[in-house]
């Protein structure tokens, strides 16, 4: 697994308090990992800080799963 994916996973695990093996490619933050809508906002904030990037609101709305997040961050950084 890539470095980006590891770092994203660490943030998700810490922020949502979920088991690491639950954070799979297609795991939806809201449907599978128990996030509420504000959690997803906070996750995006945490990604922005970890990777020093800016994630615009319209892009943030499309980041629904762990895989989406990794893909976006790889393309952005």
């Amino acid at each position, binding site marked *: 697994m890539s470095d980006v994916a590891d770092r994203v996973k660490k943030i998700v695990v810490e922020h949502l308090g979920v088991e690491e093996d639950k954070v799979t490619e297609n795991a939806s933050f809201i449907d599978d990992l128990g996030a*509420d809508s*504000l959690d997803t*906002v*906070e996750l995006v*904030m945490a990604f922005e800080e970890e990777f020093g990037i800016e994630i615009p609101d319209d892009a943030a709305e499309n980041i629904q799963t762990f895989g989406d997040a990794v893909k976006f961050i790889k393309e952005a950084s």
Partner: protein
Amino acid sequence: MFDLTGKNALVTGASGGIGADIARTLHARGAAVGLSGTRTEPLEALAAELGERAHVLPCNLSDMEAVEALPKQAAEAMGSVDILVNNAGITRDNLFMRMSDDEWQSVLNVNLTATFKLCKGVMRGMMKARWGRIVNISSVVGATGNPGQANYAASKAGMVGMSKSLAYEVASRGITVNAVAPGFITTAMTDKLTDDQKAGIMGQIPAGRMGEPSEIAAAVVYLSSNEAAYVTGTTLHVNGGMAML
């Protein structure tokens, strides 16, 4: 009770009567204060009066770029913004049938849109800190309406609806969002009233007098405190009984 030591507060409209007293009172409770307003001179004078823990942050709230920059400037000056008091407001009164689009829009922009942008600008820091206080200064007029003030009343009622919605969203993060709705308070704005107008107003106030800026400031301090952690989405009416809501 109501100790604000270590908290950083941004107060808009701090050059005005009520805003200056809000800043003074928060400062007296131990908070650092960021004094924002359009007129630099009274802000500098207030900062000099307060001494330490006071920062002058001039901002014209009708300039949306300046509004967006303000939370960052405040955080840079103080380290964070833990308490935001949206106190700045303008009036451009006219009869509804004569009210121009510009009179409508300029009041909505400064009173409501700037408040929205400032709330948004401080939210990230508050969410991370899991602590925040937003106090939006509304008006009795927002609840009762007032002839000649359709724009002002709409903006002040809008602040209340916005505060409640935001309060829902961020309550789980330790952030409260409340409004204070002053009635008639002795300020430069109400000094302009004629004696006849004042007499008319007095007749509607059970307390039989106008309120003092310090009485608004006390409500703001309460809502900014740790003690008010369980109070959110509310509007505290400070109006001498003029409208019991």
